[in-house]
């Protein structure tokens, strides 16, 4: 048992190191891409929309919501990589033959995706907040809880995007993933509007938003970074994120048996 665990961990670690090494070569380019996105978000949500009449107290919550857009863009890139690999190169077939438990192997994909998201989003997120300056008003920041929510959010996104790349056919993915999955998740996920504002405007729509796990990502990040009574309580967001992770992990397992059929 202990020997199997050690073998699994050693192979797992080597694969994580290998992917991190590959990432180190792409990091500069990914940071430039992320910086382009964040600069535009700061311009739109920090300056242009307030000029169009958006209330200044919405600047900070909507900017935090835009981190989801950044994560979705990065996540889409990750699913594309796996999708192309499954369809053409089948490097994953080689990985499936390694002396590594399948759960550990898919753990490698999750961990690497989380590392990639983390090193790309944190510096840009911080730069965005600095760029917004006094427009980014906080009430009570909870750094420790932020780390927990951020970790869970990245874990959720990683399993969700990996499941997308295995659940659907190559053609369906290209034609329909954005209109039928990502756009509804983004638009009805509290990324653009704090949930309580939506609920105050239309309780029915507010309840609909609660069915979307992205709402808990956005609200969890807002509650821990900005704080105050304007967002969903953190003790609601964290358990709901755990539910989201479980569901997406189940979808991922289904996708694995459907597309890869490992023994």
């Amino acid at each position, binding site marked *: 048992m202990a020997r199997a665990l050690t073998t699994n961990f050693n192979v797992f670690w080597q694969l994580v190191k290998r992917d991190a090494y590959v990432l180190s070569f792409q990091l500069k*380019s990914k940071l*430039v*891409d992320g910086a*382009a*996105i964040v600069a*535009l978000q700061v*311009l*739109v949500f920090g*300056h*242009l*929309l307030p*000029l*169009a*009449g*958006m*209330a200044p107290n*919405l600047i900070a919550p909507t900017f935090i919501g835009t981190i989801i857009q950044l994560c979705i*863009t990065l996540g889409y*890139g990750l699913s*594309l990589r796996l999708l192309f690999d499954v369809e053409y190169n089948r490097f994953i077939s080689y990985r499936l033959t390694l002396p590594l438990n399948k759960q550990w192997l898919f753990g490698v994909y999750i961990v690497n995706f989380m590392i990639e998201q983390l090193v790309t989003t944190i510096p840009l997120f911080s730069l965005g907040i600095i760029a917004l300056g006094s427009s980014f008003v906080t009430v009570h920041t909870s750094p420790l809880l932020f780390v927990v929510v951020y970790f869970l959010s990245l874990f959720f996104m990683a399993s969700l995007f990996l499941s997308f790349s295995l659940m659907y056919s190559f053609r*369906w993915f290209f*034609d*329909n993933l*954005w*209109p*039928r999955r990502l*756009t*509804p998740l983004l*638009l*009805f996920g509290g990324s*653009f*509007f704090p949930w309580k*504002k*939506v609920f105050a*405007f*239309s309780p029915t*729509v507010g309840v609909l938003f609660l069915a979307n796990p992205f709402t808990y990502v956005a609200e969890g990040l807002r509650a821990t970074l900005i704080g105050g009574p304007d967002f969903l309580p953190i003790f609601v967001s964290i358990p709901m994120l755990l539910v989201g992770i479980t569901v997406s992990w189940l979808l991922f397992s289904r996708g694995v048996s459907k597309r890869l059929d490992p023994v």
Partner: protein
Amino acid sequence: MLRTMHIFCVFLWRDFTLGWKSKNSYLINYILIYPMLYAFTFLYLQSNIYFGAHQQAMGTAIFVGNILLALITLSNKYTNELMFDLEQNRFIDYQISLLPPRFVLLERITFAALCTFLMLMPYFPVAKLVFRDQFVTTNTSWIALEIMVFVGAFFCSSYNLLMSCILRTAQISQFWIRINQPLLILGGFWVPRYIIQQFSPLLGALTYLNPLMYVTEGLRQAAIGGNQFLPLWICLVMLLLFTCLCIITSFYFFKKRTDHI
């Protein structure tokens, strides 16, 4: 010349026949899902939550500009086949042996523009049917609006075809993030041009170089009207000029990639 026109039409017919196979999913996505999602979010939620209950005009102005994303993504779906083909099967080599290369490109642009326009023609009427009062159409010229959608589809198709001639598949993701996204956002996807001008006159002046801005300004002029948006005729003329520029440039890059005589 007659033979050329015949082959041009045959190629166009071939593309329509192939495109017909994926019509169902595109019809659902672009006639139902996108207009409903965007209208609900930007006409209904955003205009009420961001701007207050009596600011439907601003909600309408933003929603009208949002069609830009559908225009550019859909025309890209119809034109990016060339990019993959240039790197893999080279079916294009067979086509240019039958039809002059410039006509092959013109045929692809015509096909992409027509399909994009047909798919997006019901975009605003569907939104109006569902979100009646939220979509302010008291000053709307529906014919001008559809003309702008057509000219926008024509421009986006020629722009995307040019990019298919220039780019490699490995560069797609970077190109969308570094080029298309700034063009979209500074092209009036989120806010009209006069807001950008108000924020920074320099940035406002730079938007005149962005062809996508003429699409959104023309659409807003047709939908809402008023002197805060650019006149329709300027938008049409500028878009036709940018379209010609894209077509001529794509001839040059296509020649480089295919090395035809």
